[in-house]
C-alpha cells in the first residue's frame, strides 16, 4: 500500500514539472474556465449564500426533478455517442477497471480512516463506501469543464459511472461488519436489490440504452430539452448543492481536522490512481480525466441511502459532511482541474493530448 501512497507525492510533483512546458496553458485555462463558468459560479453563490445565512432555498421537488433530468440527459447523450462510435475493447476494460476501483478503493480509505482518522470500524466502513462510489454531479460538472477544454470524455463513460455506484457499497459493508456480518440472508438479498436497482443506476443505464436504441436521429427530437437546457439546469442544481453543502458543514459537530484532511487528500489520491489506471488501459485524455474524477468523487445520494438501511448506527453527520460538504466542493472547485492537468501531462507524455 505504501508505494501507492507515495505516488500522491509523485502526482503532486508531476503537476509543476511535467505541465510546465507544454501543458501550463492547459492547466491555467482549465482553472480559468472553472472559475468563469456559470456552472461553477452558481455553486460558489450557493456556498456563499448559505454561509451568510440567507434563506435562499430550492424546493426539494425541484431539486429532485433536476437530478432526474441530469441523469436522463447524460445517460441519453452517452448512449447516442456509443451508438455513433460503436463499442470496442476499451469499453470493456473501462467497465472492469471501474468496478474494480469502486470495490477496492474503500479498503485503502477504511485503513486511513481507522488509523489516521480515528474512526471506529463501523463509521470507517460507512465513510469508505462513499469514497469508493461516485458522485453523478461531480462527473457531470467535470464533463462540462472537459468539453470547454476541448477534451471530451467518451460516451461510454456514463456506463462506467453507473457501474461504479454500487460495488463500493458491498466492500464498505464488509469492512464495517466483517465479511460474514452483512446481516441475514434475506436482508442481504434486499440490500443487493436496493443497490442494483436504485433510482440513479436504473435511470442512467435505462436512458443510456434508450440513447443507443434511438440513436442520433431519435435523439434529435428531444435534444432541445435534454441537450440545450443541460447547462442551465446544472447551474441551478449546483446552486442548491452549494446551499446544502455549506448549511451542513455549518451545523456539523462531528468533523475533526483529521477527517477534514482525509476528505481532501483521499480524492487527490484516488483521482491520481484513476488517472494512472485510465492511462494504463488506454483511454483518451478526456476519458482518463473523467475516470480520475469518478475515482476521486464521493457519493452523497445512493450510498447514504444504503447506509441508513444497512448501517443505521453509523453517523450521517460524519459521512454526509465529509462527502458532501468537503470532498464535493473540493472536487468541483479544485480537484477536477488537478486531475485534468495530471491526465494531460501523462497523456501528453505518452502520445499527445488527444
Amino acid at each position, binding site marked *: 500500500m505504501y508505494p501507492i501512497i507515495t505516488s500522491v507525492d509523485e502526482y503532486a510533483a508531476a503537476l509543476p514539472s511535467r505541465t510546465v512546458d507544454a501543458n501550463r496553458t492547459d492547466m491555467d485555462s482549465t482553472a480559468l474556465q472553472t472559475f468563469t463558468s456559470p456552472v461553477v459560479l452558481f455553486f460558489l453563490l450557493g456556498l456563499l449564500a448559505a454561509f451568510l445565512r440567507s434563506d435562499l432555498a430550492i424546493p*426539494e*421537488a425541484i*431539486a*429532485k426533478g433536476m*437530478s432526474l433530468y441530469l441523469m436522463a440527459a447524460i445517460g441519453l447523450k452517452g448512449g447516442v455517442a456509443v451508438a455513433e462510435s460503436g463499442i470496442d475493447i476499451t469499453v470493456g476494460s473501462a467497465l472492469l477497471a471501474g468496478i474494480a476501483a469502486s470495490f477496492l478503493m474503500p479498503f485503502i480509505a477504511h485503513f486511513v480512516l481507522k488509523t489516521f482518522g480515528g474512526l471506529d470500524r463501523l463509521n470507517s466502513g460507512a465513510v469508505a463506501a462513499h469514497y469508493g462510489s461516485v458522485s453523478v454531479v461531480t462527473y457531470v460538472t467535470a464533463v462540462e469543464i472537459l468539453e470547454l477544454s476541448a477534451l471530451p470524455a467518451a460516451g461510454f463513460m456514463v456506463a462506467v459511472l453507473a457501474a461504479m455506484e454500487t460495488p463500493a457499497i458491498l466492500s464498505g459493508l464488509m469492512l464495517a461488519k466483517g465479511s460474514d456480518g452483512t446481516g441475514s440472508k434475506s436482508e442481504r438479498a434486499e440490500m443487493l436489490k436496493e443497490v442494483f436497482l436504485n433510482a440513479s443506476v436504473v435511470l442512467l443505464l435505462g436512458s443510456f440504452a434508450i440513447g443507443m436504441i434511438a440513436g442520433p436521429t431519435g435523439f434529435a427530437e428531444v435534444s432541445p430539452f435534454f441537450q440545450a437546457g443541460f447547462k442551465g439546469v446544472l447551474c441551478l442544481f449546483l446552486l*442548491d*448543492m452549494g446551499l*446544502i453543502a455549506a*448549511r451542513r458543514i455549518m*451545523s*456539523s*459537530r462531528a468533523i475533526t481536522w483529521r477527517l477534514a484532511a482525509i476528505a481532501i487528500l483521499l480524492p487527490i489520491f484516488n483521482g491520481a490512481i484513476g488517472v494512472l489506471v485510465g492511462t494504463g488501459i488506454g483511454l483518451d485524455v478526456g476519458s482518463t480525466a473523467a475516470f480520475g474524477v469518478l475515482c476521486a468523487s464521493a457519493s*452523497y*445520494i445512493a450510498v*447514504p*441511502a444504503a447506509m*441508513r*438501511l444497512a448501517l*443505521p*448506527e453509523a*453517523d*450521517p*453527520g460524519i459521512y*454526509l459532511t465529509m462527502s*458532501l460538504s468537503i470532498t464535493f466542493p473540493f472536487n468541483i472547485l479544485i480537484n477536477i482541474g488537478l486531475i485534468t492537468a495530471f491526465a494531460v501531462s501523462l497523456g501528453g507524455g505518452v502520445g499527445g493530448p488527444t
Partner: protein
Amino acid sequence: MTETVIRKRIEILADTALVRRVTEIINRVEITGWTVLPVQSGSGRDGPWQDERVTGSNKSLVLTVASQIKAEKLASELEPILSSHGLLLTMWDVEVIRGDRF
C-alpha cells in the same frame, strides 16, 4: 349521539428509507392499515436536519390506529429497531367511529 369506541393511535417518526420496514411490521401484526405523512425538518441529538431529499436525509411520520392489544404487539415488535434506527414512537387513546374496522 354517534357511537364511538376507544382505540390506540400510534405515530412513528422514521427515516423515509425505513418506512417500508415499519409498515411491514404493521402488516405483520395484522393492523388493518396505516398512513404516512411527510415531515419537513427537525432536530434531535444529532442537531438539526432539513429535508434534503437529494441526499435521502428526510423523515416521515407513520400513523396507525389499532386496538390496545395490537398496538402493544406493534410497540414490542418495533422495540429492537427503535434505538438503533433512531425512531420516535408516541401512542395515545383516541375515540374512533366504526371501531370494528380496527
